[in-house]
C-alpha cells in the first residue's frame, strides 16, 4: 500500500513538472515588457532650470523660517547663557574664597608650627644644657609645646589667692583678663619668657638697676648743707623676701669718683683730697644679713636692718642700716634706707676752709635702689 502511494506521488510530480514546461514554451513568445517615460501633465517637457529654481525657492523659505525662529529664540538663548555664566562665576568665586581661606588657615598653622618648633628647640637646648650639668641620663624631647611645665632655674611660686591686687596701678578699673591655663613655655603676647619668674617666698637673686637707683650722702657744714649723689652703682643680692633674715646676702659697689655734689670745685676736692678716688675707686658694701626683719606677703613689703661691712677710703667697718623694701607693679624690688657714719671712722678728714667753715664729721648715707630678678646677666 505504501509503495502504491509513493508511486502515485512520484507520477503526480512528474506530470506537474512536464505541464509547467509545456505552458512556458507555449506563451514565451507572446509576452513583451516595455519601459518608457510617463507623459507629464499637459504633455509639457521637463524644465531643469525650473526645477532648480523651485528647489532654491524652497530653500529660501526654509532659511527665512529658520531666521524667524532664531530671531525669537536667540534672546532667550543669550539669557540662558548669561544665567549659566553667572551661576558658574558664583561657583568659581566661592571656590576661590574657599581656597583663600584654606591657604590662610594653612599659613596660620605653619606659623604656629614654626613657633612650636622654636619652642621645641629652646626646650631641647634647655634640656641639653641641664643634661650637661646633671648626671648622664636620657634626654626626653617634649612631645608638645604645652605638654609639660618647663622647670624654672629659680624655684617658682605663685601668688596666693589671698594676695590683694597690685597697688599703685594707674587705672582704677584694670582691664579684665580671661583666666588661662599655665603653659609649658611661659609666654607674654607670644614672646617666650625666660624660665625664671618672680616669687616672693623663694630665695631669688636680684640685680641693681643703675638707671633707676641712687645712693648718696647728706652733709652739714657751717654755712650750707649739701648732698652727694650717684647712680653709678653695680651689684646683686639674694633674698627670700618672705623670710629675709638669714637668707639675705649681696654686694653693692659704688664708683666713688662719680659722687656729685652739684659744685665742680667741691667735687674735685672731695674726689682728690678726701676720698682719694685714684687709690680707692670703689665704695663697697658687703651685705651679710637682714636682721629683725618683718615681711608681709599681702603687700609684698619687707623691712629690717641691713648689716654688713662698708669699705670706704680703704677702710672697712661694720655698718647697720634700717631699710624698707617693696615689690612694685613691674616686679622690681624698691629698697630705701639710710644711716649715719663718721668720716673719721674711715680716715677721711672733714673739709674745712681756714678753720672757719667746716663740714661736720657725721654724714648720713642713704640708698634708693631698684633691683630686678637677675637672670643670666
Amino acid at each position, binding site marked *: 500500500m505504501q509503495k502504491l502511494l509513493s508511486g502515485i506521488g512520484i507520477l503526480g510530480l512528474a506530470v506537474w513538472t512536464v505541464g509547467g514546461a509545456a505552458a512556458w514554451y507555449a506563451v514565451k513568445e507572446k509576452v513583451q515588457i516595455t519601459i518608457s517615460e510617463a507623459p507629464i501633465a499637459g504633455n509639457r517637457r521637463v524644465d531643469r532650470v525650473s526645477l532648480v529654481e523651485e528647489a532654491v525657492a524652497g530653500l529660501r523659505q526654509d532659511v527665512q523660517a529658520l531666521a524667524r525662529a532664531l530671531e525669537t529664540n536667540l534672546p532667550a538663548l543669550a539669557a540662558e547663557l548669561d544665567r549659566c555664566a553667572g551661576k558658574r562665576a558664583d561657583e568659581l568665586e566661592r571656590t576661590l574664597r574657599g581656597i583663600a581661606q584654606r591657604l590662610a588657615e594653612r599659613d596660620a598653622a605653619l606659623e604656629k608650627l614654626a613657633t612650636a618648633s622654636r619652642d621645641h628647640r629652646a626646650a631641647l637646648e634647655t634640656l641639653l644644657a641641664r643634661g650637661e650639668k646633671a648626671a648622664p641620663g636620657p634626654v626626653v624631647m617634649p612631645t608638645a609645646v604645652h605638654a609639660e611645665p618647663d622647670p624654672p632655674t629659680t624655684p617658682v611660686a605663685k601668688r596666693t589667692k589671698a594676695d590683694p591686687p597690685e597697688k599703685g596701678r594707674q587705672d582704677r578699673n584694670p582691664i579684665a583678663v580671661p583666666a588661662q591655663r599655665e603653659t609649658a613655655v611661659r609666654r607674654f603676647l*607670644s614672646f617666650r619668657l625666660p*624660665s625664671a619668674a618672680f616669687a616672693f617666698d623663694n630665695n631669688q637673686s636680684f640685680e641693681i638697676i643703675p638707671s633707676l637707683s*641712687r645712693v648718696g650722702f647728706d652733709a652739714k657744714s657751717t654755712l650750707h648743707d649739701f648732698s652727694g649723689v650717684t647712680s653709678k652703682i653695680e651689684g646683686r643680692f639674694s633674698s627670700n623676701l618672705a623670710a629675709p633674715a638669714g637668707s639675705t646676702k649681696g654686694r653693692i659697689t659704688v664708683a666713688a669718683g662719680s659722687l656729685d655734689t652739684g659744685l665742680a670745685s667741691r667735687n674735685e676736692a672731695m674726689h682728690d683730697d678726701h676720698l682719694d678716688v685714684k687709690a680707692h675707686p670703689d665704695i663697697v658694701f658687703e651685705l651679710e644679713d637682714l636682721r629683725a626683719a618683718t615681711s608681709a606677703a599681702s603687700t609684698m613689703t619687707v623691712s629690717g636692718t641691713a648689716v654688713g661691712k662698708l669699705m670706704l677710703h680703704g677702710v672697712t667697718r661694720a655698718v647697720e642700716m634700717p631699710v624698707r623694701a617693696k615689690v612694685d607693679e*613691674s616686679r622690681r624690688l624698691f629698697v630705701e634706707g639710710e644711716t649715719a657714719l663718721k668720716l673719721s671712722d674711715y680716715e677721711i678728714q672733714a673739709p674745712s676752709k681756714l678753720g672757719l667753715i667746716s663740714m661736720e664729721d657725721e654724714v648720713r648715707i642713704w640708698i634708693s635702689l631698684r633691683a630686678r630678678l637677675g637672670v643670666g646677666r
Partner: protein
Amino acid sequence: MRLPLACAALVPLVLGATACIPSNVVAKRDRAVELDSGGLDPANPAWRPLVAEDLEGLYRSVRITGDAAASVLWMAYYFAGKDGKYSGAALVTGAPPSFQTLAGRFELQEESILVMDGQRVPARAMERYLELATHNGTVILERAPIE
C-alpha cells in the same frame, strides 16, 4: 697781732664767697629716681574701646607690669599691618640679653578683644597708646613714628 687781724679781714671775704653757694640737700622724697610715665597721665587714664584703626602701625612698649616684667621682658616692639599680620621684637634677659622676634596674625573681635594667633587678649586704647593685658602681665604700647 697782725695775723689774727688778717684772718678777721678774710672772714667776710670767705663768708661772702660761700654765701653765693646755695644749699642743695636732696629731699627724702626726691631721693628715688622718678619713673618714666611714658607721657601717660596717671591721674586720669581715659581708656576707650579699641577700634581697628588703633592697631595699624609701629608701637613700642612704655610700661610692662606683672610677672612678665619680672622675668624679664625689657622692651617690646610691634608692627601691625592692614593685612592682619603683625611682627614683633622684644629684648629679654639671658646670657647675654637678646632680642626675640616673631610674626603672626591678629584680628580685632567684639568688645576690644584682640586675637593674636588664637590667643584672646583684652585691649583698649587712649590717644596714641594701647594697653594689652594677659594673665601674666600688662603692656602699654605707644605709637612710634616711622621716620
